[in-house]
Structures are given as C-alpha cells and as structure tokens.
C-alpha cells in the first residue's frame, strides 16, 4: 500500500504540468457548482433573516411578493400607497400588538430612506428575534434627525452630526434634491446583516415636511418653505407605503389577514412574510435548478476531461507500467495506480474549489450588498453543499476506475514488451 501510494504520487508529480491543469479545471467546476449552491442558500438565508417577529406585512393591493420585496427588502418601488386613516384603523385593532408604518420613496446616495415611527426601533426584529441596537447615538427626536444603518455609515463615512441631503426618488442619479432641508445624523445602528444596514431612517413627519412645498413629485415653482417654519404646518402624514404588524397572538393571524384583505375603505393586501417568501422561492427555484444543472454539467465536463487526460497519458505510460510489471507488480496494482491518480486529481481539485468558494463567499457578501442591495448571509458550507461535494468526489472516484480498468486490461494483454 505504501509502495502504491508513493509510486502514484511520484508518477503524478512527474507529470504535474498536465495534471495541475486538470486540478485547476476541476477546481473551477467545483467552485461553480458549490458557489451556485452557496449563493442560493445565502440569498435565502439573507432574506429569511431580514424580518422576524412580524406577523403580517400590509400595503396597497399588489402582488404579495412585490409587497415583501419593497416593504421588507427595499428592492423595487411601491406602486401605490395606503391612507394614514387605514393605518390608524389597523393599528387600533385589539389583536394588534404593534404596528410599524413605513413610508418609502426618497433616497440618499442610492440608499433608501424610510419614514417611520419610534415603534420601529422598539418592535422591529430580525434574524433570531433580535432587536435593533445602536452603535452610536439614539433614535430620532427632532424633525430633521436621522438614524442610519451600519452600511450607510461605513460606505459614506458618516458619523454623528453629519448633515445629509435627501433626494427625491431612488437611485444615485437623483432628479431633485431636498437641499433646503438638510438632516442631521443622530444615531447609527449596529450591523444586522439585513436591509436595515442600508437604510436611512427618518420620522414620518420629516417625510411630510420635505414634501410640503412639493406637488406631484416635483418642487412647486415659486414656493419655498424654509426648514424653520415647517413645524407650523400640519405634519400628520396623509399616506404611507406599508405597515409591519405584530399580533398579540399568532393564532389570530388568518383572521387579521382576512380583515385586511376585505378592508372596506381601500384595497389592501396582507401577507404572511414566510408564505410570501415561500412563493418567491418557488418562482426562483426554476432558475436555481437550471443554474445547478448547468454547473453539474460543467463538473461532468471537468471529470470527462480528467478521464480523457489520464487515458491519453496511459499510452505514454505503457513502458512505465511494463517495467512495474517486470519487477513484480500485479495487474491490480496497475489498476490502482491509475485509479488513484484520477482520484488524487479530483480530491485536490475539490479541495481547491471548496477553499475558493469559502474565500469567495466572504468577499461576495459585502460586494452583493454594496452593488445590488442584496443581503446574502453565508454560514459555512451548507449540508446541501457538503452533499454536492461528496457527490463530486464519488463521481470522480467512479470515473477514475475507467482509466484504471483500461490499464488493467492493457497490462494483461501487453505482456512485458508493449508494442509502442
């Protein structure tokens, strides 16, 4: 056994150029396969971590997935708003423990601005029912106070008392700015690994205030209300985008949902976050499965290449195998020698590919968050990933038997003097 392994290793090392290329090709294919799986799990993880403790998400009637995407994940735009009066009615229901209003539509340097109430900092939960915590400062108290997420603070290098100007609409290329009414950072939240990190929180009144002299999404020409006078106006919001609701008892969730969906004053939609996410996954899963199938194909191509390379090398190694036979090696050793070589390449490739995925994961998470606002949470290799890895190695071991068998047959028929 020691002889076998040492021979296999030395022989492989002698042809390391070709074999290293194979290792790299297998590593890349493994990286792709595991990467797709890790990303899939990471995105799901990120999404399901983003909200917890919220029983219903309520907004103007739209598709449940869309409501979830903009209300919780800050992805995409709301199509309609709901009236403030509806919010007050819903919040006043006896079954409701807390109601967090959310008003979207403005942004700052591409980060979404959320108009909300203090209840947000008190009741919002993420991950494993975790509370939002302040790294510095406190919740907003005055009208032009703002609380920013950790990612915002880090990327834009903001600290307490930094003045910021909000833009109307979303995206970095803003059309109009609320430059007459600057905000002051009064709080920075601790990192949560959720869309909260990318959010800029202001009070609902502030949202009203900056739009006082606006109409239909644009500043009214000739009208300018200076910041110091806004308190003289009625800053009660007329509309909000969505409501996150927590119930006193989860058992009332369907009753509440029915109440919202049949709401008399305006068409509203209430979704259970888990259910909406499930719907999202069932749509996305087609894409996921396709990606997984493609990467599985790439691995197959990699393994086929390996078999081809080892088989091609076999022709050149007939002399070597005959010499081994002459000093007493049996055909079984010849078989093992070739099989081990294939397996060695697969193991090395799988190891490199896995390391690359692990390394890439830690780099990918901040990149995806910064670039796409996607919160991806990688937590080691998932069970599914480990299974895939095991499958690749098993498949590699199986295909390595092919050159092994060929060499075995060859060593039986060649005798000691192969015809070259």
């Amino acid at each position, binding site marked *: 056994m020691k002889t076998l392994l040492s021979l296999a290793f030395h*022989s492989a090392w002698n042809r390391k150029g070709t074999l290293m290329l194979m290792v790299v090709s297998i590593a890349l294919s493994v990286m792709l396969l595991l990467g797709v799986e890790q990303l899939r799990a990471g995105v799901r993880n990120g999404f399901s971590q983003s909200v917890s403790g919220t029983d219903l998400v309520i907004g103007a009637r739209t598709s449940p997935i869309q409501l979830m995407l903009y209300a919780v994940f800050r992805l995409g735009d709301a199509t309609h708003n709901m009236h403030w009066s509806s919010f007050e009615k819903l919040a006043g229901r006896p079954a409701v423990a807390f109601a967090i209003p959310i008003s979207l539509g403005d942004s700052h340097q591409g980060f979404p601005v959320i108009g909300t109430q203090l209840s947000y900092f008190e009741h919002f939960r993420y991950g494993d029912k975790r509370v939002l915590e302040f790294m510095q400062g406190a919740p907003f108290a005055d009208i032009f106070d703002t609380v920013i997420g950790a990612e915002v603070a880090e990327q834009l290098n903001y600290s307490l008392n930094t003045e910021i100007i909000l833009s109307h609409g979303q995206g970095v290329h803003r059309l109009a700015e609320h430059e007459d009414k600057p905000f002051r950072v009064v709080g920075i939240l601790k990192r949560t690994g959720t869309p909260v990190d990318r959010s800029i929180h202001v009070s609902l009144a502030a949202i009203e205030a900056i739009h006082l002299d606006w109409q239909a999404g644009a500043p009214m020409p000739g009208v300018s209300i200076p910041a110091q006078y806004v308190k003289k106006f009625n800053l009660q919001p007329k509309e909000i985008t969505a409501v996150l609701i927590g119930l006193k008892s989860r058992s009332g969730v369907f009753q509440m949902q029915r109440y919202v969906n049949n709401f008399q004053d305006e068409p509203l939609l209430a979704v259970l976050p888990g259910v909406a996410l499930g719907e999202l996954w069932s749509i996305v899963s087609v894409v996921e499965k396709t990606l997984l199938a493609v990467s599985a194909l790439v691995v197959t191509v990699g393994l086929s290449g390996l078999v081809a390379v080892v088989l091609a090398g076999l022709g050149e190694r007939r002399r070597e195998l005959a010499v081994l036979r002459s000093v007493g090696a049996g055909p*079984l050793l010849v078989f093992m020698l070739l099989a081990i070589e294939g397996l060695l390449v697969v193991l090395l490739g799988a190891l490199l590919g896995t390391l690359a995925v692990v390394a890439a994961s830690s780099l990918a998470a901040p990149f995806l968050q910064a670039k796409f606002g996607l919160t991806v949470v990688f937590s080691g290799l998932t069970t599914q990933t480990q299974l895939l890895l095991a499958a690749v190695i098993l498949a590699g071991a199986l295909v390595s038997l092919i050159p092994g068998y060929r060499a075995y047959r060859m060593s039986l028929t060649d*005798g000691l003097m192969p015809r070259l």
Partner: protein
Amino acid sequence: MPHAMTIEIDNLHYAWKRRSDFQLNIAELKIAHGEKVFLYGPSGSGKSTLLSLLGGVLLPQQGRIRILGKELTSLSSVARDRFRADHVGFLFQQFNLLPYLSVIDNILLPCRFSKLRCQRALQTETSLEKSAIRLLSQLQLDTGLIHQKVTELSVGQQQRVAAARAMIGQPELIIADEPTSALDSDRQVAFLDLLLAQCAASNASLLMVSHDRRLATRFSQTLAMHDLCAGVNPTMPFSS
C-alpha cells in the same frame, strides 16, 4: 535445495487472442542452473512473447513452463507476480527505468515487491542502500549518482542502473532482452562483460535475447528462436 534446472519448457503453445496469424510453439527448452544462454531471434520471431511467458505475465494455452522447478501454469496470477518478483530479474532494451524515481529508488524497486530479495540484499550489506552502491560499483558506475534523477544519466549509465536493478537481491534468473542494442558497439562488449561477470558472481542463470549474433561468443550456450520453434509453426514470419 536448489533445483537443477532453471527453465524447463514442454510442448508449449501460445496464440494471441486477437492476432490469429501469430502463434508460438516450443517443443522443448531446458536451461540448467548457472548457464549463460544466448537466444538469437530477429524481431517478430516471438521472443518478446516467450519472455513474457517466462515471467508468468502471459500464460500458455497448452504445455508447461517450469522455473526453478515451479510450475507457472499451476500458480494463481498473484502467486506468479510474487514468484517473478522473488526469482527473476528483467533487463530491457531501453527505457528500463521509471523516470520519476531516483537512481537508488529504481535499483531498489524489486525490493519493494519482494521480501525475499530485500532480505537477500541485506544478507551481505547492512543496508539496502549499501547493497545498491556495491552493485553499482561492481558495474563500474559512479556511486555518487545514486540520488540523481535517472533522466540525467546517459543511455549507457541507465542500462547499468537497470542491470543493478535486475540483480539486486540475487534473483536466480536474469532475463535480458536486447540489453545492449541502445549502446554503441565498443560499449556493448564492455557492458556484456560486466553483466556476465555479475551473473557469475551471484551464481544466476542468464537468458539473453538478441538479434545480434556477434555477441553470442561469450555465452555458454547459443539457441535460435527458429530452431526452438522449427517445423511446428510454418506460418511464423522469419526474417532470415
């Protein structure tokens, strides 16, 4: 108690499964212990097949092959491999060595497969390496080369390393297949002398196959492939 005959062949018949035009038939071949036999055979005469049969790598369809009194056909494939490792040293025309092992590792290769040869190599020397070094110096090769890569050696040096490998642990039978054909003519004689001297020193039988009749003079017995097979196989291609 050593058997008097090193090789005994009776009524051997071998045909390649895939090449029906070629057969090897040998009515009788006997080589006594300690003999130095020259077997003349042009290429295509079946000598390679004969050597594979003697090594127990191929099995005849009919007849018997006995090496040192052991009936090869009665042994299992694993036992034949072990028997070959224990008792037979092979020396080929060229590319005898594993390019990925050092000189010393190439020489000691048979000891990895045969405990018997390992023990014998240790009988006269305290370590395997010393045993290999002694063989190398007897074959007049610079012993400083032992840790060198074999690909850095000249062809003549490589053949001497291969000879050392065939002889390490004193196998009773050395089979050499055109061992000198890659060497230039004055080196051929010198190499042959070393080979014969070493076989005599370790009391091994030597069967050397070659197409070059000029080398036959130094052997105790000369045979020709077509005499061995004469009259039995008219379809066999002879080049002379």
